[in-house]
C-alpha cells in the first residue's frame, strides 16, 4: 500500500476540483482527469481515487462496496484521513458499475430541510465516450446545466443500478449525486437535478 506523496494537496486538488465542478455544472460533459503517478489498489479507478484525494479529509466519511473493498478502504483512509462508515451513513460511496443495485438502497438521500446531507456515488465503469460503441449504454440527460439534452455512452454499468438511482432521485430535492469515472480517467457527473433515460446499444 502506497502513501501518495506525489499528490500536491494544494494545486492538484484545486485542478481536479475545477474539473469536478465543471462536470457537475454541465451533466454528461466528459472531462479528463490528469494521469497522475498514483497507485490505487485493484478495484478502483485512478479517476475515482483522484476524486477522493481532491475532496476528502477527516471531516467526511466514505464506504467502499467494490469487490476489493478492504484494501481500497485502507488505502483511501491512509491517504485522505477520511473516516470509514457503513453505507447508510457514508458521505461518499465507491462502487463498481456492474454491482448489485440493492447495495445502495440504504444510501443517505437527505431530508427536505437539508437535502444536501446525502451521499455521493463514485462509480467505476469501463469506458465513457461521446460516440456510440459496442455494448455501451446510451444515456440521454436533461435538466439544469444542459441546454437541450446531452447524450453520453457508458460501458460497464448495470442497468438495474441506473434504475435504483432513478428511484432514489424520484423526489427532488432528495436524492444522490453521481460521479462516474472510467479507466482512461474520463469523468462525468449526474446530479440529482437531472433526469436521464437509458438504452442499450448492441
Amino acid at each position, binding site marked *: 500500500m502506497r502513501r501518495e506523496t506525489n499528490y500536491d*494537496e*494544494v*494545486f492538484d*486538488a*484545486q*485542478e481536479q*476540483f*475545477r474539473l*469536478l*465542478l*465543471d462536470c*457537475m*455544472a*454541465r451533466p454528461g460533459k466528459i472531462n479528463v482527469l490528469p494521469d497522475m503517478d498514483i497507485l490505487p489498489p485493484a478495484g478502483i479507478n485512478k479517476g475515482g481515487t483522484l476524486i477522493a484525494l*481532491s*475532496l*476528502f*479529509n*477527516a*471531516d*467526511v466519511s466514505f464506504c467502499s462496496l467494490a469487490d476489493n473493498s478492504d484494501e481500497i478502504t485502507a488505502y483511501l483512509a491512509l491517504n485522505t484521513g477520511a473516516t470509514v462508515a457503513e453505507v447508510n451513513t457514508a458521505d461518499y460511496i465507491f462502487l463498481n458499475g456492474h454491482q448489485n443495485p440493492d447495495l445502495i438502497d440504504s444510501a443517505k438521500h437527505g*431530508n*427536505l*430541510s*437539508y*437535502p*444536501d446531507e*446525502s451521499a*455521493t456515488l463514485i462509480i467505476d465503469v469501463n469506458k465513457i465516450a461521446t460516440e456510440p460503441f459496442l455494448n455501451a449504454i446510451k444515456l440521454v440527460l436533461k*435538466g*439544469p*446545466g*444542459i*441546454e437541450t439534452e446531452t447524450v453520453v455512452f457508458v460501458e460497464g454499468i448495470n442497468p438495474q443500478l441506473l434504475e435504483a438511482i432513478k428511484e432514489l432521485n424520484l423526489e*427532488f*430535492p432528495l436524492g444522490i*449525486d453521481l460521479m462516474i469515472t472510467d479507466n482512461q480517467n474520463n469523468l462525468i457527473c449526474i*446530479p*440529482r*437535478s437531472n433526469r436521464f433515460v437509458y438504452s442499450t446499444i448492441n
Partner: protein
Amino acid sequence: MVENKKYVNKYNFAFIDEATKKEIRRKLLKAVAIPGYQVPYSSPEMPISRGWGTGGLHVTLAIIGKADVFKIIDQGSDASVNACNLREFVHMMTNCKTTFDTREATLIQTRHRVTEEELNENQIYIYQVPQPEPLRGVERYENKTRQMHGEADYAKMWVSLYEQIVRHGDIMLGAGYPVKVNDRYIMAPSPIPKWDCPNINQSKALHLFGAGREKRLYAVPPHTKVEPLEFEDVQFHPEDFSTRACFKTGYNKVYLDELYFDDGTRHFVINDSNFLDKMVNHEPIKQHSNKYLSELKNGTE
C-alpha cells in the same frame, strides 16, 4: 542555524487552509446539484469582517487556481473601494492575473451587479450575498424557512408580493428581486437590480453565491431556468430607462447610474464601468440578450 523552510511563505496559496477549502468545495458541488438550495458551510474567519464580501471571497479562494484570470466589480465598477481591496487581496494571495476586461476573466466576483456583457461557458460568476434567505422578510425563523423551502410552500411570499401591489400599486423590490430556480426553489439573487435577473436565466456561465455572514452557499448552473416571481396579471418588469440615456454614449439599453454635477445638473451614465469603457472606445461588445431587453428601443435612435 537551521533554516526555516516550512514557513517560507507566510500564507497558504489563496489564504484559506486546505481543509476548509475542501469543505467549501464539497458544499459547492452539492449546491450545484440542487440549484437554488442554500447549503450551510463553515464561513471561516477572513481578514475582512463578515458581511463585507467574505462569502464571495470564500468561494473565489476555494476555486481559484494559478491559471485563472480574476475580475471583481462592486456595483458594476472595477474601481470601487470594495472591489479594489478584494482584488488586491486575491492577487497577493494567489498571484493570479487580474483584469478589468469582462471577456478575458475566468472568475468574476461581484457585489450587486451582473455585467452587461454576455458571460461565456468558461466563466464562473461569484456573488457576494448579504441575505441569502428570500423568505426572511416573511418568516423570521430559520427552521421555518427551511421547512417552507423543503415543502415548496411559498404562499407567504406570494401574499407579501400581492400586498405590496395592493398597497403601492407595484412590487416594491428594487434589488434582490426573488427568483424561482429550476421551477423549484425561490432564491435571493443577491441585491442585483431587477434589470439583471433575466440575465441569470439560461446563462452560459456557472453562477455561485456565497453569503459569509449568514454562512450559506448556493448556485445556479448554466442553462438553468431562473424566473422572477410574477403574477399572471401583474408581470415582472425591469427598471425603465426609456426616457434617459447615458450622457457619454447616448445608449440606454443598459443599467444607468444617476450623477449630479457641480452645477446641479443631472446626468445618467452606464453603470458597468468596463462596458462603458468599451463603448466609449468603440470596441466590439456582445451584450446579454433577454426578452425584456429585446423589447426596448434605444431612446436616442
